[in-house]
């Protein structure tokens, strides 16, 4: 027995080491790929500034690289388009998503819970082009009729669709966060005479705060990165929106619309990579903010 155990233990150790090496390689690989993409964006994007000044790019209010007259490369209308539509999406999706997550995690039981969760997760994988089509042929005429405006292809439509799209992510991740709150918390609350709803809102929800914050951040990422659906319903006029009913153009749509036709090696071509870099910075910024919030949360709230 002892003699047989020895080599087995050795082979187990070897497998363990092998697995460690494999995971390390995978982790390094993804880091390298990410870094590569970043460098690629930077390398191409930087060429924009041979012909376009940095101030013009960052503070210009007109985006018209393929102009009749003088081309313009102003980031502001596109940045605002992305930012405002995402903000509207979150205003809609965050309260709705968290409320749904509380319902699913705390109140629903058995097969009802399982089916609901599965449906929500199924919706997360819904093709965005189908949602875009829905926005174009159903939501747009509806908005136009409801508000007595000429066209429903506008900021409101884009915000609603983006909200709809980030909703499943927020629900699903929030639900997971609520589920991992230890049962002893709930039992303690019940023991103090709290009702199930009070327990959910005053005990479980605050305990899952950092997980829910992560859910919101993921929802934000989904909304800011979405291209197809928003391109179909936003009207794509690169103007600074003054109302919910103005058309907008997002950063992602601009890259998708213009990359195919911009001639390689022109400022127009390079400026699209600069836009990609801006998008990357937005994603990085939000992640850093989320990270620090979660860290602060962990310090103030220890299990």
């Amino acid at each position, binding site marked *: 027995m002892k003699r047989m155990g020895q080599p087995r233990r050795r082979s187990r150790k070897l497998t363990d080491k092998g697995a460690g090496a494999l995971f390390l390689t995978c982790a390094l690989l993804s880091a390298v790929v990410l870094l590569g993409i970043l460098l690629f964006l930077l390398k191409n994007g930087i060429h924009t500034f041979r012909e376009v000044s940095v101030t013009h790019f960052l503070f210009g209010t*007109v985006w*018209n*690289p*393929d*102009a*009749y*007259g003088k081309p313009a490369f102003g980031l502001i*209308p596109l940045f605002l388009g992305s930012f405002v539509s995402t903000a509207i999406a979150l205003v809609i999706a965050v309260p709705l998503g968290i409320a749904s997550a509380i319902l699913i995690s705390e109140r629903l039981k058995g097969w009802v819970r399982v089916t609901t969760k599965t449906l929500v997760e199924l919706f997360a994988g819904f093709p965005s082009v189908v949602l875009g089509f829905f926005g*174009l*042929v159903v939501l*747009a*005429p509806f908005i*136009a009729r409801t508000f007595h405006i*000429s*066209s*429903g*292809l506008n900021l409101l439509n884009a915000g609603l669709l983006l909200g709809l799209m980030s909703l499943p992510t927020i629900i699903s991740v929030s639900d997971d966060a609520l589920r991992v709150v230890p049962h002893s918390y709930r039992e303690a609350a019940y023991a103090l005479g709290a009702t199930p709803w009070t327990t959910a809102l005053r005990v479980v929800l605050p305990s899952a705060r950092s997980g829910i914050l992560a859910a919101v951040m993921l929802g934000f990422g989904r909304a800011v990165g979405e291209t197809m659906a928003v*391109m*179909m319903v936003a*009207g*794509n*006029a*690169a*103007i600074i929106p003054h109302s919910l009913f*103005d*058309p907008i*153009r997002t950063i992602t749509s601009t890259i998708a*619309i*213009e990359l*195919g*036709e*911009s*001639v*390689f*090696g022109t400022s127009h071509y390079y400026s699209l990579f600069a836009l990609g870099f801006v998008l990357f910075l937005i994603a990085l910024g939000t992640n850093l903010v989320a990270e620090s919030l979660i860290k602060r949360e962990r310090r103030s709230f220890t299990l």
Partner: protein
Amino acid sequence: MKKLLTIALLATVVTTLVAREIMVRGSDTLLNLVQNLAEAFSSVSPDVTVSVTGGGSGVGISAIISNETDIADASRSIKSKEISTARANGVNPVEHVIAIDGVCVIINASNSIEKLTVEQFSQLYQGKVTNWSAVGGPNKKVSLYGRQPSSGTFVYVRDEAVKGEYAASMRQMNGNAQIVEAVKGDEGGIGYVGVGYARQDGIKVLKLSKDGANFYSPLDQAAVDAGNYPLARPLFQYTNGKAKGDAKTFIEFELSAAGQKIVADQGFYPVPEGYQARNEANLK
């Protein structure tokens, strides 16, 4: 069973290897038409597949410049800057005219306007006129629909009629069909599409005039052929060098009587004699 699978797999690999395919990319205005032509072509030469995708003339021309497609569809002619980029890339674009189009200016069917001068059209699209009453219509706000910069129609209409920047508030739509849908649902809407997309209920095609005296409709073939309609234009296909092999057979089919009948069925106009001679020279 295993043997059968292997044979089936081998057969698939072999057929994919020998399958002959022509890639056509570009203009959204030409998309429906060329897809129909490709379908008819497949019954003539069943062993050749023609795959047709859109994206806009700019996308097609950019693809032919970088030699990523066999044929580029374009609703505008290639710019001289694009030709020099192509040459630098070792690509020599050769032009074929496969149909004639009259770009239709469309409005909602409920709008009382029947005609516009090119000057009025330009004022509307530059955002200098924002109410229909200023051009003799109802007291209603104008909402502009146009294409995206990757579109040949976007560039053509801007350079030939607007002769200035489009108003920033113009909604930029993905294709002709989307403009038609939007104008149908918008009482103050105006848009421009290829003639193959304009014969529909719910919208009205306007007559246009260069001089303010004689108005012509793009639905009138004689006016388009004679060049009286201000936005009459040829629709192009570009190949790298003279068309060879299957691409040549396909273009010849498009220009044949059968092909030109499909052009007419799709609402566009057949290639007139003047262009036929040029096409023949470019195909030889």
